[in-house]
């Protein structure tokens, strides 16, 4: 409560005019500070124009990735190795699970405080590159400061967005169909093989369901990578330039294919499929014991193994394997405004081309991109999961087709719309044709 004062006297009139003034000034001062502070920090982060002048100046490089404990340990060891060779460079590492990673990266970037070096995948590479957040690595590549001469051509090219090298593949990877080997052997069932047609795969899954009471395959109709491979086998693609590479009829056929599979009980029921639609490795049906097969990335094998006691096998997706491609499992990108961009590029080069570092990192981020070092790693490894992962990729590499373009801006929305449409069909709330039409409509506004 304010002390009551006589409203009519001169004293109060004077106060009324005088008192608010310093208060107002103070408030506007506070306002200015709170507004200006983030701007100043933001400006500081963008202001500098490149590498440190003196190569021996101390540099602290911030680096951010997603992944588990095992990846964190390997990465920190490799970075320690870099520091041992370049004592002036130290690292500020941050890592977390995949869930929420991109929310945090976007927030950091918006705050003008992104890490110098960060891990990114093809869901977001185009989004970040289109907004000029990533440093164009082409000049470094040309001056051989970033050595890609031992990389498969299609692999480094998969990081090119609008003519700029927006990120460098941290490893090679491809689509993998993972199945429960133990279950099949126990029931005397044949293992699936690369090159089976889609129809053969579904018939095989039907047989597994009948013999084991465990549904033979996860219904992948909500899975964009399965749809993508299937589209490429039909001579289509997920994207063509800035447009969709397919029509509603194509998607309707795809949904129809899996409706048939569900009707034949080759797949689990809609609610179980929904659980498996999560991107979380621990919820994949092949490890939760709710289906004999899951549609994943081949480099997820070691992670999947940790979540089940059964032995797992991995092959290509059904159909012609040349629809699959050497995909960058993930990329390293440098923030365009980084003060230490030259050092950051050198670290990427080190993580990909230094024999010791590559040997340390193994296949955790996919097969090493450097083909010479890939051989070195595969010869030197004793870990059975890593061995298997390398063997499968090596076998498939022979059959790979050319890489498609990197997914365009709006891809993450396309992915979530596919899940929604496919689930609409799976729960029987829409016919395949209706769900497909709805999906294509939603995609068009997502990538517009």
């Amino acid at each position, binding site marked *: 409560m304010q*002390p*009551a*004062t*006589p*409203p*009519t006297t*001169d*004293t*109060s009139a*004077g*106060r009324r005019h*005088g008192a608010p003034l*310093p*208060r107002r000034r*103070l*408030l506007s001062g*506070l*306002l200015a500070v*709170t*507004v200006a502070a983030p701007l100043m920090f*933001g400006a500081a982060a*963008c202001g500098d124009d490149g590498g440190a002048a003196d190569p021996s100046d101390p540099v602290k490089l911030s680096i951010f990735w997603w992944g588990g404990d095992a990846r964190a340990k390997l990465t920190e060891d490799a970075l320690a190795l870099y520091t041992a060779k370049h004592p002036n460079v130290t690292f500020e590492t941050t890592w977390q699970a995949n*869930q929420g990673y*991109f*929310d945090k990266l*976007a*927030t950091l*970037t*918006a705050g*003008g405080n992104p890490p110098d070096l960060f891990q990114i995948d093809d869901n977001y590479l185009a*989004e*970040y590159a289109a*907004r000029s*957040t990533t440093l164009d690595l082409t000049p470094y590549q040309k001056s051989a400061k970033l050595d890609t001469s031992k990389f498969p051509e299609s692999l480094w090219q998969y990081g090119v967005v609008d003519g700029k090298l927006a990120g460098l593949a941290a490893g090679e990877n491809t689509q993998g169909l993972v199945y429960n080997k133990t279950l099949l052997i126990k029931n005397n069932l044949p293992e699936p093989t690369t090159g089976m047609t889609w129809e053969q795969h579904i018939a095989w899954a039907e047989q597994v369901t009948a013999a084991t009471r465990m549904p033979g395959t996860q219904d992948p109709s909500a899975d964009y990578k399965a749809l993508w491979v299937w589209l490429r086998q039909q001579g289509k693609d997920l994207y063509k330039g800035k447009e969709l590479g397919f029509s509603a009829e194509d998607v309707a056929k795809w949904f129809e294919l899996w409706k048939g599979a569900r009707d034949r009980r080759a797949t689990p*029921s*809609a*609610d*179980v499929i*929904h*659980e498996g*639609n*999560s991107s*979380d490795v621990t919820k994949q049906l092949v490890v939760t014991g709710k289906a004999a097969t899951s549609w994943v990335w081949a480099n997820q094998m070691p992670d999947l193994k940790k979540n089940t006691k059964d032995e797992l096998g991995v092959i290509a997706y059904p159909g012609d394997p040349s629809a699959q491609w050497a995909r960058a499992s993930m990329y390293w990108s440098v923030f365009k405004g980084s003060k230490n961009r030259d050092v950051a590029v050198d670290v990427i080069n080190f993580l990909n081309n230094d024999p010791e570092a590559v040997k340390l990192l193994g296949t955790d981020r996919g097969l090493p991109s450097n083909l010479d070092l890939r051989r070195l790693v595969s010869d030197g490894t004793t870990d059975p999961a890593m061995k298997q992962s390398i063997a499968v990729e090596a076998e498939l590499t022979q059959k790979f087709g050319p890489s498609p373009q990197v997914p365009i801006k*709006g891809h*993450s*929305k396309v992915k*979530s719309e596919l*899940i*929604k449409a496919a*689930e*609409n069909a799976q*729960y029987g*709330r829409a016919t395949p044709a209706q769900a497909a039409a709805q999906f294509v409509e939603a995609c068009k*506004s*997502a990538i517009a």
Partner: protein
Amino acid sequence: MALTTAPDPTRRGPGSGRAHPARRGPGTIRHREGLAAYVFLSPWLIGLMGVTAIPMLLSLYLSFTNYDILTPFSEVEWVGLANYERMFTADPSYWHAVRVTLTFALIAVPLKLAAALGVALLLNRAWRGVGLFRGLFYLPSLLGGSVALAIVWVNMFNRDGAFNSLLSLVGIEGRPWVNDPDWALETLMVLAIWQFGAPMVIFLAGLKQVPTELYEAASVDGAGRFRQFRNVTLPMLSPVIFFNLVLETINGFQGFTAAFVLSNGTGGPVDSTLMYTLNLYITGFTELQMGYASAMAWVFLLAIAAITAIFFSTGRFWVHYSDGEDR
């Protein structure tokens, strides 16, 4: 009561003597006191400015732009009312989220309040161990927005969860509650209703305030239990009911954590748990449309303000204050 606080022109307030102009200016006691006040206030002021007022104004500005969170502010493009237009005319998932949220609030909030009042009436008696029960019923709402609780809920209401095991004991075949688009939202409602502890405690406090003479008088007049409840308890409790109703409605509209955890942040299965705030979050952070998400946030704020205003304007017809004046 009103008389004592009425302005009295003949009386001088306690601080009025100090207000003389000659004593003002730097170095005076008044000035130093003022400065001290600002110093003590500054953490709060900086907090208010830095984390509330400025971000809010900024988000209002951004709601008229195509801000996508990665582009620097300086390059943000002004798009006028385009975001609002899109929301109201061209975005089916927006209206879907509005429907989901309204359904949730309209069903869960009244049931939660009914549960809270019912249990509060039971726990208002003086029987042995009542304190323990009050604590136990309050516990779930202490865990309110907790992620852990939502995870427990998901596991309980899975196809092979504890709830279905219970049902199977009595020969009923359960459903995959949380993974069934027809039931996922209902499962969330049950979770919200179960957390009735906070309004229950407030109801309990309100019930303690009802004068026992009124019940005695009512029973002398021959009123039975139900009549006493209807004609004494409810009117006496109406300010507390009003308070809880407003608070829980706002809470209900803002439901986020449970829906986020249950659906892995997607609002699924098939958008059945796509609450307004979850849709807003996905739009802003996953789809990187922060300008559009800001517009959603402002419409949300206005909608909640409007609903609260409606409550207040209808309140005077049924809320009775015990000082005898109906306001």
